[in-house]
């Protein structure tokens, strides 16, 4: 070593030198006090590094776990409802355009037959009952044998499933109920405007509709669960009775306590000793509930379409009319293909449909006025085959969650979209000029499966998608004003992630940030604002974002 090179000393200390280099350096060190001093410094630095390596950083893992858990749950939810998100994300512009175009065609009044839909609307609704959509090993107390798919159920029916049984029931208020294995549940009240269940043992998962009604109550093991519109599960086992919510919230009457609200992602356990414990919904249970919701959505989509068709395109107060259960014509498919449920129309359906008031007849029960019908084949795949296994009761972990604003019963993204398919801006070339005598059926969009078809609709797909995007944004903005924006976050993220930066994607990012701020989730809000600053360095809301992020 001919010069005092500290990096060589570092390499020597780190044992990175070859034997020859090492010997040479050691010889040099013997006669160079300056290098020995330097080596001592290097060794001190390395010892300090050794000590630093052993330290464990302090991280508030409960907080981080919660965020990661929420991320996972969000992904699970988006997977379970992917068909809906496809609509929201507008990635499938063609599908959206075709759906809207089909809807437009369906709703377009026929000049010659203006009076006739009145007759169809006047068709008296059939009595509303609950029914079995799909069941294995389900029986009704007092009867021999298993119940078949399609069996009607009535108030007072007590149902049991075998140890390997399971059932998916359709309730008169358009809610859906999955009964787990080895369960015993009684339909205390099964009316379109009043539903009450009593779970004596086992497990039920409920996708409650947003229907106006006197009440929807589940009683089990001393707990009384009052529902608005939500997705939740009730489990009664030897451990006690547990309520878990994956969407919306429920009010639970607990004996000897004040009423308790159980919100999104939470669960409540009343054990056999009467002790109440709160915890977080497990990912597996969330997945099950999301799948139940997805099945319910798919079923609803079919029903809604059938009602629209039966009423000559008039979307009435639909649930009562349509609460006839899942159409029996649904074929059984495996879960993968079932997820891609869709309605397909032949290419000539839109281009050449001369008369479209009565285009689809899906169910035998729905009376249809005879008229010349266009040939539109509707293929509706079955909702996913969902029989998730019973989730074993996990250890309840305590978690504090920020109070979430409760969504009003009808606060869905699409429920009140104003004139989502207003005919005028839709540039579908092959349709007959429009009359606006019939009110557009915007709510159909909410649950309608994707429509794949119709070459003529392609030209209009992009503008239509953009129109729907703007409607979505309007609706999100309104919800933000009302403090009920949480439901829009997923759709907003889809828009915000669009690679093409536009004023709309910019607004979506800002809406997300504001929504988080409104929900008292400052960290997430700041994250969104940071993303905004990265994505839009010359954006319109720079000041707001900078204020939020800090100096």
């Amino acid at each position, binding site marked *: 070593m001919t010069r005092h090179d500290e990096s060589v000393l570092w390499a020597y200390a780190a044992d990175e030198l070859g034997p020859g280099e090492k010997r040479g350096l050691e010889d040099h060190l013997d006669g160079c006090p300056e290098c020995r001093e330097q080596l001592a*410094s290097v060794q001190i*630095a390395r010892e300090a590094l050794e000590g630093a*390596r052993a330290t464990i950083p302090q991280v508030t893992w409960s907080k981080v776990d919660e965020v990661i858990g929420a991320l996972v749950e969000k992904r699970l939810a988006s997977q379970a409802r992917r068909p809906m998100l496809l609509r929201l994300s507008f990635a499938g512009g063609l599908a959206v355009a075709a759906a809207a175009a089909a809807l437009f065609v369906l709703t377009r009044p026929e000049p010659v037959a203006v009076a006739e839909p009145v007759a169809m609307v006047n068709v008296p609704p059939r009595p509303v009952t609950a029914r079995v959509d799909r069941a294995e090993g389900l029986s009704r107390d007092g009867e021999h044998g298993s119940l078949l798919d399609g069996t009607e159920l009535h108030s007072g029916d007590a149902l049991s499933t075998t140890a390997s049984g399971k059932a998916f029931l359709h309730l008169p208020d358009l809610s859906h109920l999955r009964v787990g294995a080895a369960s015993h549940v009684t339909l205390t009240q099964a009316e379109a405007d009043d539903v009450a269940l009593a779970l004596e043992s086992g497990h039920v998962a409920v996708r409650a509709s947003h229907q106006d009604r006197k009440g929807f109550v589940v009683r089990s093991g001393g707990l009384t669960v009052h529902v608005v519109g939500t997705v939740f599960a009730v489990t009664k086992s030897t451990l006690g009775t547990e309520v878990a919510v994956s969407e919306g919230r429920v009010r639970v009457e607990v004996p000897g306590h004040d009423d308790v609200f159980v919100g999104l992602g939470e669960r409540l356990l009343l054990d056999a000793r009467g002790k109440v414990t709160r915890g977080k919904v497990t990912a597996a249970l969330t997945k099950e509930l999301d799948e139940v919701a997805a099945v319910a959505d798919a079923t609803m989509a079919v029903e809604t379409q059938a009602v629209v068709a039966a009423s000559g395109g008039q979307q009435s107060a639909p649930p009562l009319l349509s609460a006839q259960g899942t159409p029996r014509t649904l074929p059984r498919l495996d879960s993968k293909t079932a997820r891609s449920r869709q309605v397909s129309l032949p290419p000539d359906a839109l281009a050449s449909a001369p008369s479209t008031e009565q285009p689809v007849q899906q169910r035998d029960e729905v009376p249809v006025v005879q008229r010349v019908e266009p040939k539109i084949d509707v293929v509706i795949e079955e909702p996913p085959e969902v029989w998730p296994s019973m989730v074993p009761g996990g250890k309840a972990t305590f978690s504090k969650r920020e109070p979430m604003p409760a969504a009003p019963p009808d606060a869905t993204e699409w429920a009140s979209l104003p004139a989502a398919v207003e005919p005028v801006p839709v540039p579908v070339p092959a349709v007959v000029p429009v009359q606006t005598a019939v009110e557009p059926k915007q709510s159909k969009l909410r649950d309608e499966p994707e429509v794949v078809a119709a070459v003529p609709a392609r030209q209009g797909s992009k503008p239509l998608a953009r129109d729907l995007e703007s409607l979505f944004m309007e609706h999100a903005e309104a919800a933000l004003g009302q403090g009920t924006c949480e439901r829009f976050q997923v759709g907003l993220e889809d828009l915000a992630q669009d690679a093409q930066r536009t004023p709309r994607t910019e607004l979506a990012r800002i809406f997300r940030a504001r929504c988080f701020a409104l929900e008292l989730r400052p960290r997430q809000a700041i994250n969104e604002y940071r993303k905004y600053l990265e994505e839009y360095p010359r954006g319109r809301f720079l000041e707001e974002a900078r204020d939020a992020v800090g100096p």
Partner: protein
Amino acid sequence: MSAEALPLPRLVPTPPPTTQVEARLMRLVERIKKDDVLAFEELYRLTRDDVARTLAHLVGRRSDLDDLVQETYIRLLKAVPNFRGESQFRTFLYRVCANVALMHLRWWRRRKEDLTDEPPEQEAAGHDPERAAQAAQASRLVHQALEKLSAKKRVVFVYHELCGLGPEEIAQACGTSYNTVRSRLHHARLEFTAAMRELTREVMP
């Protein structure tokens, strides 16, 4: 002076993680690619301590480490579909950590915030209080010295000296060349030793 001309000796590559761990991570990655989000949760459980420790070394004694860990996993979830398996998953993970840390360091330095605010103390492993105190003191000194390094040098230095990555792996994790890694490490070592010398002189005059 080019990297080749530097008198920096060969860097000894450290042994890679056990193939069992890596294989398990790769299996999880494959599941994540197939939309199995629960696999992501498992991957998070397996790697979170390592990620937190790495980030703590990379960004120093910050009070917002929680946010950085979250940010890392949010990015990771988005990035995993693009992971082609051409490197070890550990390297890929370190790359995500480096990106998060670099962004944070730049942002932090722009703020020019007073670093005298004492962030939460770090814990030392083990139960010996004396050793724990020494380790905490060492950690404090190291992080103060690391503050003197530029962000890029710091990443290379931390990955080599604290995380035990070899130069090739660092080059992959930082998206740079082997020689650049050598060069940065050379300068980082000199600067770090100088900073430590100064700090120890302050502590023990």
